[in-house]
């Protein structure tokens, strides 16, 4: 019995070496503390934790914190997009809803936000809030905050629309089409905020470098700009003539691309046309129609099948849309998750829901209602209203616009 033991022992040892060497090293130290649990085990354990539990795990001790930081990104990508929500009366909290687990989270908004605020949009994981001082218009400002990391930055208030104090929230939000926030420059050291107006053909933007607003009027450049997106380090816009252009910040110039097979959008002014950049691809969504822009072939291509991806389509001014693979958290692929925060029949009740539109028309459509804490009815005057998709995995990586 002795001889086979020694030979097989060596063989087994070799086999062992092939197995996770790192885990073995940790194990071989014969450490007796839970703190030294191998990362591969913590990784399995964390799979069934929610975000709150996972964050707590990172506060227990140094080695668990190291694990927390190293695996955070993969943890977040295995979770569904959230719906971020704040009711019209919300002062203190904004809420998040995980559509896969139906788990709700909240996070405190800082106290110093004044009493008068609108959310203009959600961009790069940041909420863009307009804070108004009722008694002193000159002290109005834009306050951009990431509710997940807590990073915040202030910009002066944009020059247009004027006389903000005359607007009430619904009217105000209708005068702004889209706003976005991005980092700017090669190191991402500066920040950029840009606002599209609905009624005036002007692009307004401000960088943290000069802290001054610039305006670009495009009266002589065709239709209204309907949406904008940061794609491959550039700002792409789309106008109502279904033309796609690139806006250069430095030269303050808009240049349209020559693309074949552009469809015609209806003449409807309020039509929601969306530019969506995801996975290195640029899409135009005229829901439920989706087009992919092939920049190398210079053409529009209608998308009939999203494959293993799904489009998360934001609503209204809060537009924050992405194409992602939902398989990691058990979502449905090849469909549109259309977030729709308002109830047409009873507009005073803000019921949040999202619709699932499969690309394959044989599959049934579905409507899912999300019940958020409602504090009072939504007749709020001058108050926050946020309802948008929120993509945690990208919430700490701001889209970057190159300075060129």
């Amino acid at each position: 019995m002795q001889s086979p033991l020694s030979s097989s022992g060596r063989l087994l040892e070799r086999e062992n070496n092939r197995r996770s060497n790192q885990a073995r090293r940790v194990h071989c130290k014969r450490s007796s503390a839970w703190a030294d649990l191998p990362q591969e085990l913590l990784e399995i354990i964390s799979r069934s934790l929610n975000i709150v539990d996972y964050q707590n795990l990172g506060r227990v001790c140094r080695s668990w914190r190291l694990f927390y930081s190293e695996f955070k990104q993969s943890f977040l990508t295995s979770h569904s997009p959230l719906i971020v929500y704040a009711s019209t009366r919300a002062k203190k909290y904004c809420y998040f809803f995980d559509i896969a687990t139906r788990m709700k989270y909240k996070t405190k908004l800082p106290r110093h936000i004044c009493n008068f605020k609108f959310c203009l949009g959600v961009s790069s994981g940041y909420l863009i809030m307009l804070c108004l001082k009722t008694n002193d218009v000159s002290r109005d400002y834009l306050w951009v905050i990431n509710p997940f990391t807590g990073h915040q930055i202030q910009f002066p208030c944009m020059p247009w629309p004027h006389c903000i104090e005359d607007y009430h929230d619904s009217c105000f939000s209708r005068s702004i089409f889209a706003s976005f926030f991005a980092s700017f420059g090669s190191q991402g050291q500066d920040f950029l905020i840009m606002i599209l107006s609905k009624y005036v053909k002007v692009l307004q933007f401000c960088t943290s470098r000069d802290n001054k607003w610039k305006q670009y009027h495009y009266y002589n450049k065709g239709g209204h700009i309907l949406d904008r997106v940061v794609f491959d380090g550039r700002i792409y816009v789309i106008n109502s003539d279904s033309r796609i252009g690139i806006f250069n910040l430095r030269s303050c110039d808009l240049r349209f691309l020559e693309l074949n097979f552009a469809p015609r959008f209806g003449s409807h002014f309020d039509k929601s046309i969306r530019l969506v950049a995801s996975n290195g691809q640029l899409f135009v969504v005229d829901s439920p129609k989706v087009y992919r822009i092939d920049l190398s072939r210079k053409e529009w291509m209608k998308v009939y099948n999203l494959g293993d991806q799904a489009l998360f389509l934001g609503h209204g001014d809060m537009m924050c849309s992405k194409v992602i693979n939902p398989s990691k958290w058990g979502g449905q692929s090849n469909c549109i998750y259309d977030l729709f925060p308002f109830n047409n029949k009873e507009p005073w009740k803000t019921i949040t829901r999202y619709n699932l539109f499969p690309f394959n028309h044989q599959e049934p459509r579905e409507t899912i209602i999300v019940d958020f804490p409602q504090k009072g009815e939504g007749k709020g005057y001058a108050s926050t209203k946020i309802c948008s998709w929120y993509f945690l995995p990208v919430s700490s990586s701001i889209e970057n616009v190159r300075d060129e």
Partner: protein
Amino acid sequence: MSKLGQAKRIIFLKTADGQLFEVDEPVAMEFEIVKSFFDENEDAADDTVVPLPNVSAEPLAGIIEFCKAHVEFRANGAAGKDEVKKFNAEYIKEKSNEQLKELILAANYLNIKEMLDFLTETIANRLKNKSVEYVRAFFGIENDFTPQEEEAVRKEYEWAFEGVDED
């Protein structure tokens, strides 16, 4: 593999502390590390002793008990039923924290998927919805952050997500 075909085969396992275990083949084959050893050494003698230099006798005994029960459950078609849940609950109830940790490290080394899933889920349940202080006390983990790190962590968690109580 066994030349005797149907005859019940015994696998010999030797732990780090020198204990020799005789384990029924189907139970030992639950251990991926043992299984792949025999897969790659098809002509290994029947009385080959597989050394397990990273596992000591106590957790191995516990693991054999668990795997034996689960192999039987599967043979009886009881997998996934209440009987199994009841066994698992009883099994874990008797284990101290220290034993649980030895078990999970050993199950990880031996690469026993079913048991590892069960043990990691058990630990996850002890973390879910618990405060940091509770977790530290429960698992006997020392707070080894320096005051500066502690402050940085605290700052970061001013922004942490909180759960929402359903009312």
